[in-house]
């Protein structure tokens, strides 16, 4: 236990010594504060703690869905674009050198000549490197939690689901970086390959979601598309599912199955954050009681789209990917002569 605490503490010291970590943390705090500065009055919305105000019929404190909309801003904009992209990228740049430096001759020798198993050493070093994201997202969520609580008097602890989810997403990318570091001891190569895998995974998920939308959601919205001419017509009648695109979707889904679901896992946050027991993907539940059948069916199609992958599928396939990659890295680390 003493050895594990030592490695974790050293990881924190390493982070604290990196300027990029503090820059990244400061930027995250700034983004969270900007989000927290958005306020709602009876007639509209204000930003930067009331410095600028706009009248708006939808975004105001009278709207019963205001908490839902405020949280959607968090789950659909702030989390995917800041925490899910920029903050993760900065975190990856911050820690991608940890393993290559650790594995340098003269450095690794000291660590593995101690009475601690190589597996414990590797796993602890790997997990403690995730601290960078844990700290960032925790600070971010705390500010958002306080903002929503103080503004809307809703103390929604489900916001903190962002911490394990985003750390999990980071661990998926970081595992690739660690594997490359163990194989090559090169910081640059481990960063580039991790980014490449991240890009491929992101591209495949975006393709899958667009094809799903075209095959299922667009027809449900009464839009008929002719893929040959590119013409589209909209009516208030749902159309048939596009069979060709549905087939293509099945192929894409099969292709992306073994890849880590970085994007889908971040959007999983919408299923984990709840308001009055209902998660943010259950859009039909948030609709006006006056909505007609067509609007209800459009909303249901959107709900189906957001729930097309089960949590077990997203987490399970991603975890399988991570376990394979990290086991391979661990095996190489343990078997290697230094």
């Amino acid at each position, binding site marked *: 236990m*003493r*050895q594990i*605490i*030592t*490695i974790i*503490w*050293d990881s924190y*010291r*390493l982070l*604290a*010594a990196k300027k990029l970590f503090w820059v990244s943390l400061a930027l995250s705090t700034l983004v969270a504060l900007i989000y927290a500065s958005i306020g709602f009055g009876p007639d509209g919305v204000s930003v930067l703690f009331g410095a600028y105000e706009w009248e708006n019929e939808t975004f105001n404190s009278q709207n019963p869905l205001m908490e839902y909309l405020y949280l959607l801003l968090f789950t659909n904009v702030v989390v995917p674009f800041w925490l899910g992209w920029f903050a993760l990228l900065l975190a990856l740049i911050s820690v991608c050198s940890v393993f290559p430096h650790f594995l*340098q*001759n*003269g*450095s*690794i*020798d*000291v*660590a*593995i*000549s*101690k*009475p*601690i*198993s190589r597996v414990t050493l590797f796993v602890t070093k790997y997990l403690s490197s995730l601290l960078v994201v844990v700290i960032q997202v925790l600070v971010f969520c705390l500010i958002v939690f306080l903002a929503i609580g103080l503004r809307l008097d809703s103390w929604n602890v489900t916001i903190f689901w962002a911490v394990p989810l985003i750390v999990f997403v980071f661990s998926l990318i970081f595992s690739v970086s660690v594997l490359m570091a163990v194989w090559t001891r090169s910081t640059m190569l481990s960063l580039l390959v991790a980014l490449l895998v991240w890009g491929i995974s992101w591209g495949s998920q975006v393709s899958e979601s667009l094809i799903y939308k075209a095959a299922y959601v667009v027809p449900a919205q009464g839009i008929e598309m002719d893929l040959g001419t590119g013409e589209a017509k909209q009516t208030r009648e749902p159309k048939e599912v596009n069979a060709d695109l549905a087939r293509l979707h099945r192929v894409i889904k099969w292709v992306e199955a073994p890849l880590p679901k970085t994007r889908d896992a971040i959007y999983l946050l919408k299923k984990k954050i709840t308001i009055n027991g209902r998660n943010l993907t259950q859009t039909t539940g948030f609709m006006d009681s006056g909505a007609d059948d067509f609007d209800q069916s459009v909303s249901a199609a959107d709900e189906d789209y957001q729930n097309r992958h089960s949590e077990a599928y997203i987490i399970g396939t991603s975890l399988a990917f991570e376990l394979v990659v990290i086991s391979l890295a661990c095996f190489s680390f343990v078997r290697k*002569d*230094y």
Partner: protein
Amino acid sequence: MEALRSVSLQVPRGVIFGLLGPNGAGKSTLVKILMSIVRPTRCVGTMLGEPVGHQPTLAKVGYLPEHARFPEYLKGGEVIRYVAGLAGVPRAKARVRSVELLEMVGMQDWGGRKMGSYSKGMKQRIGIAQALVNDPEIVFLDEPTDGVDPKGRLEMRRVLQTMRDDGKTVFINSHLLGELEMICDSVAIMDKGEIVRQGSISELTEKSQRYEIRTQGGIPVDLQQRLIDDGVEIAGDVLSVYQRDPVLMQPILDALRADGVIMVEMREVRQSLEGLFMEATAGGEPSESGGEEEKR
């Protein structure tokens, strides 16, 4: 590729043991095997009574690798405590020990500064301190004086001798033969992955022990012949007598005096560690002194 071949080595407890060898001889590989850093194809042996590779035994072992690198973001004292943590030394004990060790290696005034600000010699001192933090029964030091100034080397020798006096075993890998000669009780010479000589320095250099007599003027021809017949080598005005007992030198001195030969000096000559090393590794020409040291 075979780095080591049929290496057989015995290091008794409580000695300072030196492992010598040219670059690439396999010295560091041997130590890395003992430290479980490198896995041998086959290895039979014990260290501190346990089989080589027995992990809990490593808690009683200290190690300073060659070209050791420590985290630049840590201070000297923190490096010692970090290694103590990895070795499983309790936190309170590690704190006390780090203060003691900083003082022992002469870094008490620098322990609060970051490693990044240290010179090579200072880093090496911290390296030695971290190797001793778990109060090891045996410590392996791979090129410990690399980058250390003469004063530091002197202090280091003192530290190592104190460890030996406390019953600890010190295993040093070095190519600085003069350093080893001064402190080692026992040495082994390794070449191309094999141990080619092993024993105490006096044992290893005993074979080459002889007396040299320098004369002035010539030695009569008949006396020369008698001496050669008795096994004395004569080269110019120097006579080499392969004897270890000074008593046995007296008849030769008497014979020289009887023939009126003027003797300028007589000295005991013994092969130095450098000479022994050169001979054992066939590593080139001996140095100017001929790889020998003398006692007058």
